């Protein structure tokens, strides 16, 4: 059990859940009858993909990708030199004599790609919802099979 946990579950758990969420979203997109349920499925699908990207950029024991303005290590280094005034030390401590170690900081690139995707996702969700409203106005229903029947039966009744 412990071995299974360490060998299989821990290294790939995020990726498993991303596949499961993707399956849930895809199933909702195909099988659900209601249009708003389909849109919820679409959003779940979208977050699954974002989850995949962000999981790729995670590093173990890494900190967030913002340089620390009041970092302890840099403070210690600046104290050792002792040449700077208090104010300068605070503002410039992250300028650092050395560049940060890449292994101790999360990968910023997936975050950048996904940050815009979320806002764009909301905008596209808005477009989809407006189309839904128009479909309701045209057919008086949000159920897929009823809409299909109306379309097959020769267009709109009213």
């Amino acid at each position, binding site marked *: 059990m412990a071995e299974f946990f360490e060998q299989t579950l821990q290294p790939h758990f995020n990726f498993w859940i991303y596949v499961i969420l993707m399956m849930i979203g895809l199933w909702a997109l195909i099988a659900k009858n209601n249009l708003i349920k389909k849109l919820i499925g679409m959003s779940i699908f979208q977050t699954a993909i*974002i989850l995949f990207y962000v999981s790729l950029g*995670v590093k173990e024991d890494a900190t967030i990708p913002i340089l620390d303005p009041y970092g302890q290590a840099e403070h210690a280094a600046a104290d050792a030199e002792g040449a700077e005034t208090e104010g300068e030390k605070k503002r410039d401590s992250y300028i650092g004599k050395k560049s940060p170690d890449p292994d101790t900081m999360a990968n910023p690139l997936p975050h950048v790609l996904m940050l815009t995707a*979320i806002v764009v996702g909301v905008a596209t969700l808005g477009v989809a919802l407006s189309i839904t409203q128009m479909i309701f106005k045209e057919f008086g229903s949000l159920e897929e099979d009823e809409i299909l029947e109306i379309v097959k039966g020769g267009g709109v009744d009213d």
Partner: protein
Amino acid sequence: MIFAFDIIILVFLVIAAIISLSVKDLLSASMIFGIYGFLICLLWAEMGAVDVAFTEAAVGAGISAVLMVATVFNTKRKSSD
């Protein structure tokens, strides 16, 4: 990355997704989809993606649930499945 939080949030995420897809009341479904947004914001924060988490916090708490509720208000609340 905090591994204990990671597993719990991911499990909750799947539960919230399934609940929000199985509820027949579309108002409840859109509010539960809000929960999904809360949990996913926690997930980003815990994985160290602060900017993504901030975006998700603003979008999930302020905008997306309200947009869905507005659409349900203008269409129909009851769903067949």
